[in-house]
């Protein structure tokens, strides 16, 4: 993977580069630099903590979209002991912006469904940058029904800029496909656990995100419209995206405050890509715990609780 530095990470990266240089010099044994290196390392640790603490919402957006961030298939690879990918919506084609399959997750058989972004231009074209067409949502629904038939819990990993806005997508009923998933997930008999692992882009994210439990990675974002989209409509200027991100309150702590998300899954300092294994373990444990708890309920109770949870969402004043 190519190294990639975000603007706000630059001072930290520059300091780390200086330490690397000094270490190189020191190794060559030309001058005694130990003291200086120790000092700089301490400074770097402090700077790292400062850089990644109290991130602005726009910085979170950047981390959520970081090109080195682990994607659904990375987590499947890190977490599951066995994974069989199942393709196609049995209607039109296989949408590669969503991957589905059967997996052994911490020793528990489950259906795993997630948006899949690509790394690099070629793979991104294949994955359509993680933006599904209707057939992607219909494939997901088919696998959910399969899970229901065999009593397997459903785990969804959410990471999309949004459902694809294109001619074919509209012709094949993008709206209808999303609507069908919302209804079907509300009444699915098996447990559903969702984790927003990167970008939760509007209806295209929600179409995999109606669940008994919804978790968010620490630096993930989830919003009704992209900050750029919001800015271009309300501020008539897409470059105001950082303001839109602040106004819409789209981070994991925001969504926990608003009662939309059940819990935050901590990431390694600086983001999941700094230690994908650690992020994967955290996801795995949280999801397993949730499934174990949900499995104790009867399907009827689970559906009732799920519907009641959604019926409570929203804030209004009654005069």
């Amino acid at each position, binding site marked *: 993977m190519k190294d990639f530095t975000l603007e706000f990470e630059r001072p930290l990266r520059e300091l780390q580069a200086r330490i690397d240089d000094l270490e190189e010099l020191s190794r060559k044994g030309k001058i005694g630099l130990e003291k200086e290196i120790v000092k700089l390392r301490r400074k770097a640790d402090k700077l790292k903590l400062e850089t990644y603490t109290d991130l602005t919402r726009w910085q979170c957006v950047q981390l959520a979209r970081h090109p080195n961030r682990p994607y659904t298939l990375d987590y499947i690879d890190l977490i599951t002991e066995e994974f069989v990918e199942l393709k196609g919506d049995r209607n039109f084609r296989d949408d590669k912006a969503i991957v589905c399959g059967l997996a052994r997750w911490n020793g528990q058989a489950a259906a795993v469904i997630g948006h899949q972004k690509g790394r690099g231009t070629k793979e991104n074209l294949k994955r359509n940058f993680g933006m599904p067409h209707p057939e992607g949502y219909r494939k997901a629904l088919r696998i959910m029904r399969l899970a229901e038939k065999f009593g397997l819990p459903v785990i969804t990993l959410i990471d999309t800029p949004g459902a694809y806005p294109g*001619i074919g997508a509209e012709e094949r009923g993008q709206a209808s496909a999303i609507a069908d998933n919302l209804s079907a997930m509300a009444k699915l008999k098996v447990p559903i656990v969702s984790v927003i692992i990167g970008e939760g882009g509007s209806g295209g994210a929600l179409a995999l995100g109606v669940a008994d439990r919804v978790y968010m990675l620490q630096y993930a974002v989830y919003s009704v419209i992209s900050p750029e989209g919001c800015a271009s409509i309300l501020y008539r200027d897409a470059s105001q995206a950082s303001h839109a991100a602040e106004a819409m309150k789209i981070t994991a702590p925001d969504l926990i405050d608003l009662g939309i998300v059940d819990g935050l899954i901590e990431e390694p300092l600086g983001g999941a890509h700094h230690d994908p294994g650690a992020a994967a373990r955290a996801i795995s444990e949280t999801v397993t715990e949730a499934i174990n708890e949900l499995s104790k309920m009867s399907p009827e109770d689970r559906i009732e609780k799920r519907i009641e949870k959604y019926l409570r969402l929203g804030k209004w004043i009654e005069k």
Partner: protein
Amino acid sequence: MVPWFKRDKDKLSSQSRRNIPDGVWVLCPVCQVSLYHKELERNLDVCPKCGHHFRFPSAKYIDLLLDEGDHREYDAGLRSADPLKFKDTSAYTDRLAKNTKKSGLTDAIRCVSGELDERPVQLAVMDFAFMGGSVGSVVGEKLCRAVMRAVENRCPLIVISCSGGMRMQEGILSLMQMAKVSAALVRLSNLPQPFISIMTNPTTGGTTASYAMSGDVNISEPGALIGFAGPRVIKQTIGEDLPKGFQSAEFVQEHGFLDLIVARSELKGKVSSLLGLLQGEAVKPG
């Protein structure tokens, strides 16, 4: 046809007028004919020449569909709580106040009960005049309560959509209204009570991608814009002009997502037929 005097309609002004003041001529944006407003009003705000459906306010839909007599409006006291303290170029609370003043509405939906050809129904009508018919917590909650009344009273639910989608000013809470209304509709779908979804111009975004497309029967008015993504966003994404008629009700029906396209003048009769047939009535009413 001699091509040199063919008029290029697209180049003419096509701004439709929502509020039609008294004693004024109105230009039909489709056929460019000047219409006297009284004539237009008599014709249910439909152009008598070309059939273009002008926007119809919620109050008129209520009168159009329900029998004369007792209508009861519900939940008119619900107001947005501005949960995000949202502010862009102006504060959300100011926008709400402005829209209330302008439209006379308290939010983008009105929910009433009444009778349609003597059958009790729950009717929810969205109104574009309030913040573009956008869906926030109030619209979601009012819709859910209408669904629940239909469940409790064992009666049909009719929802007329007219909406640009979810309301950005309530952020993620707006998005969740899609899931919320879908979840409520699960309860109704367990009963043999019809849910008739009627889409009017425009119905886009999360509104289409949740309850509007979930009717037992999905109906649209002719020519209505119906889609998920707005045409501007799609055009921007693909960098090409969109085909003629793209996302019109006729296009959506051709692709298999609308049961019926019904002119406004026929709407009540058609819905009445559907309710009677779906509920197994032996005799046609009236």
